[in-house]
């Protein structure tokens, strides 16, 4: 909350802003560096109203007083991101001209994942057609013996010429669902954005969320009105890959009373990016009887064998069950990034509300992941479930860190946590740091964790049946992750299976 004094200070500053506002609006890149000019530039570029600019500036002001937290458990020291060296606003990247320009290794991976050539092209941005269109073409092409009633996925498409997207947009509009970029939402639905933005993750919440609040580039906005079931799965799948959403994504999803929505983020395709630091914020708001299911597959570039060049994925994700019987479920499959540092959380404020977290995190090469969840029980009879599966291979380090908090008001609340880890090879590490905080007698919290190596007898059994060691390994790992995969939307689950197999390649022996 902003105090009157703070508002006065900001107003004063704006009046006295001695450098004036001179940056050329036509300019495509913000000069590297983080300062008030940068923030104003981004805001102006996006044509944001004054309240939005003020909010960003407030965040910036707070950010300048903050220090990077040091509690994260990362055995390999990483060079901190140079926040002054980043350009916080850049035009979309130039796509390669043809497939010949693309690293063959990358193409091979696409092939292994079963991504068709046209889709590959689209994902890499080599196309005259947009990806959504490419998919549409494929669906109508020879392979279309798929049942016509197969689940639809709506993409938050910035390709306005794409017919598929338009069709979906119409269907969504008929249902009253707003699905657009957050920049559009700020312009077209300011009342909703004003009410909810920062209501779950306040701008001062933590170091990277605060940075994001100041300089966020773009992201998705979803509003599902009362008693509406969103007619299709929503996804940022294509948009992220084809266009540069930037490093500071901001997503806001609101399910009003009795509404229901399922949202997919990311995709299995390996994603390369020149931007090393990614600090996204995702906020979910579930009102009374609403349900939000948020699924993520993250496969950013993990860096080379020595961890050089990989992405830093520092994300703040949090949902709030505002009303009674609200339900928020996070599912994540994290295989990419040099460093993953995120804790999708649920605040269960309404009585009988429910939070869930299902996660598979795989670290290989020299990847490091410190990830988990926070379940904050405030309402009566709230329940939460945490299932976390960590897989460490190569020289990867995988850490589960989670908090279960039972407030005094959370009568009869219940939590169940299970986090299992497997280790493949003797150079990796698996760590578990749960925090349990219970403040009332009727609440119960259970935590179980185990760490083992992959069962040799099972491997032996498979190989004795003529299955190659590598396939056997991937079979066992998939079995280990089954509980989580079953929570994923079907298309995602199939891809996730393949993704694990590809990521684990070379881990045997």
């Amino acid at each position, binding site marked *: 909350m902003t105090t009157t004094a703070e508002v006065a200070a900001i107003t004063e500053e704006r009046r006295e802003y001695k450098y004036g506002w001179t940056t050329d609006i036509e300019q495509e890149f913000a000069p590297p560096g983080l300062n008030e000019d940068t923030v104003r530039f981004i805001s102006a570029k996006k044509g944001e109203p004054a309240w939005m600019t003020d909010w960003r500036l407030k965040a910036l002001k707070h950010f300048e007083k903050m220090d990077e937290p040091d509690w994260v458990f990362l055995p390999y020291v990483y060079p901190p991101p140079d926040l002054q060296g980043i350009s916080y606003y850049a035009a979309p990247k130039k796509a390669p001209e043809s497939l010949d320009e693309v690293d063959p290794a990358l193409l091979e991976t696409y092939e292994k994942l079963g991504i068709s050539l046209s889709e590959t092209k689209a994902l890499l941005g080599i196309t005259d057609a947009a990806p959504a269109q490419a998919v549409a073409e494929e669906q109508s092409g020879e392979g279309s013996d798929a049942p016509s009633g197969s689940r639809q996925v709506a993409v938050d498409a910035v390709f306005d010429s794409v017919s598929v997207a338009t069709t979906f947009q119409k269907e969504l509009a008929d249902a009253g669902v707003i699905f657009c970029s957050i920049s559009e939402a700020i312009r077209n639905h300011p009342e909703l954005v004003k009410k909810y933005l920062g209501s779950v993750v306040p701008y001062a919440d933590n170091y990277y969320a605060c940075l994001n609040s100041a300089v966020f580039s773009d992201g998705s906005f979803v509003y599902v009105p009362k008693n509406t079931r969103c007619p299709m799965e929503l996804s940022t799948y294509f948009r992220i890959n084809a266009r540069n959403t930037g490093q500071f994504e901001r997503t806001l999803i609101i399910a009003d009373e009795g509404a229901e929505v399922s949202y997919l983020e990311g995709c299995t395709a390996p994603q390369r990016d020149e931007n090393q630091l990614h600090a996204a914020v995702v906020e979910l708001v579930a009102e009374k009887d609403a349900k939000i299911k948020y699924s993520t597959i993250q496969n950013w570039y993990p860096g080379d064998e020595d961890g050089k060049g990989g992405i830093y994925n520092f994300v703040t994700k949090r949902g709030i069950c505002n009303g009674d019987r609200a339900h928020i479920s996070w599912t994540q499959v994290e295989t990419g990034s040099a460093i993953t540092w995120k804790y999708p959380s649920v605040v269960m404020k309404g009585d009988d509300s429910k939070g869930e977290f299902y996660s598979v995190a795989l670290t290989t090469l020299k990847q490091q992941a410190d990830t988990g969840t926070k379940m904050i029980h405030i309402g009566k009879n709230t329940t939460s479930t945490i299932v976390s599966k960590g897989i460490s291979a190569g020289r990867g380090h995988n850490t589960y860190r989670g908090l279960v908090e039972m407030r005094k008001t959370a009568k009869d609340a219940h939590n169940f946590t299970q986090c299992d880890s497997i280790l493949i090879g003797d150079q990796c590490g698996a*760590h*578990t740091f749960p925090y349990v905080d219970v*403040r*009332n007698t009727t609440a119960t*919290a259970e935590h*179980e964790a185990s*760490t083992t*190596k992959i069962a040799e007898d099972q491997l032996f059994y498979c190989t004795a049946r003529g299955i190659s060691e590598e396939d056997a390994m991937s079979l066992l790992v998939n079995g280990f992750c089954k509980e989580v995969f079953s929570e994923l939307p079907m298309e995602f689950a199939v891809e996730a299976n393949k993704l694990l197999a590809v990521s684990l390649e070379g881990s045997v022996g």
Partner: protein
Amino acid sequence: MTLATEPHKLDAVIDTSRDIPECQSWLNPFRDAGREAFNRLGWPDRRNESWRFTNLDALKATNFVSAVDDADISANTVGGFAIPELDDVTLVFVNGRFREDLSDAPDKLANKLGTNVTCCRLTEAICQHRESIEPFIGKLTADPDDVFTALSNASVEDGVFIRVPRGVTVDTPVHILSIATETDEPVATHPRNVIVAEEGAHVTVLEHYVTTSDDAVYLNNAVTEVFADAEAVVHHYLLEKESESAFNVSSLFAHLAEHADVHSHTVLLGGKLVRNNVLPTLAGPRAHCLINGLYVGHGDQHLDNAMRVNHAAPDCDSRQFYKGILNDQSRGVFTGRIIVDQVAQRTDAVQSNRNMLLSDDARVNARPQLEIYADDVKCTHGCTTGAVDPENVFYFMSRGLSEDVARAMLIYAFAAEGFGRMELAPVRQLLAAEMIAKLPKAQGLSIEV
């Protein structure tokens, strides 16, 4: 005594020049390093993960003196703190000072423990048996990462030194009884015990902290170093029943060589703010370590338990069982970390922390942690927090027991599981009695142990 009106918080007390006898001066470099570490580390705040849930403001704000004159205490009072039916030898400290007059005489020690066993006060060992103690004292605490360990290093005062030679089994437990009395000003003491069990030796040591008054304010910052050589067996008990106005920090460091076996039993009953560290390193293959603990809080007690079990050699196993029972506004903290080094293949580690809340104002913070760098391991941890199961209470009541008795029995049973792991029956009986005294509405309960 110098100006008592001057502020003399711990920070100041540690820096005042000490009156150290010449024969102890060889330890001064160690003390100086401790002081330097203390200044470097500084007091932990909430940002320090290890102290995140324990607020030291009250401790920091207390004016302490480092020693007081011998308290007037009768042999009768001391006798009251004996553990009934336990055949032991007792060394008595009052307000941190060794009391020869109240302790068992050296010839009794020699008679009970055997003439080749060293068991004496620490300062005597430092002055007269330097060659015997020098290879051990401070070796496990030399590089402190905790401010209280640094403080202890800086302020080595007195304590007990026990050294059991190769192959000797000592049947009689050594009972180190620390009594605190009410003093004009709060006393800070830093007892240090050094226990050395040579190859194949067996020894049992009890550290027992008691008080004559629940109004007594003081700090007991105890450090115990245990060296268990190959095949050695060391059983260590910490029975803490300090004044409910006092601060207690106890740290048990243990170094286990090949096939050594160390059992640590801790029971926290008293104290206003208690921090209990158990820090074993399994340094030799096939070593075994049992860490068994119970913390029972009421009023506004704060009981913080921090375990760090380091598996540094292959084929070792460790077992941790900690239970908490918290009533009124008390708060329990459990942090258990198992670290498995890359060399520690085929480690088998189990950790369990279970808590029972008896009041809505009580609070538990549990952090069971695994940090694993080896792949061929079996590590599990479990952690639960809840109340007395109403179904169980109902079952007891349907058999004709009153609700109070039913609840008391269930709470007692919860705690008693840990007593069952203790080898010394008299200690189990004493704890059962103490538990019943502390449980609400359990006074009428009589339980056979």
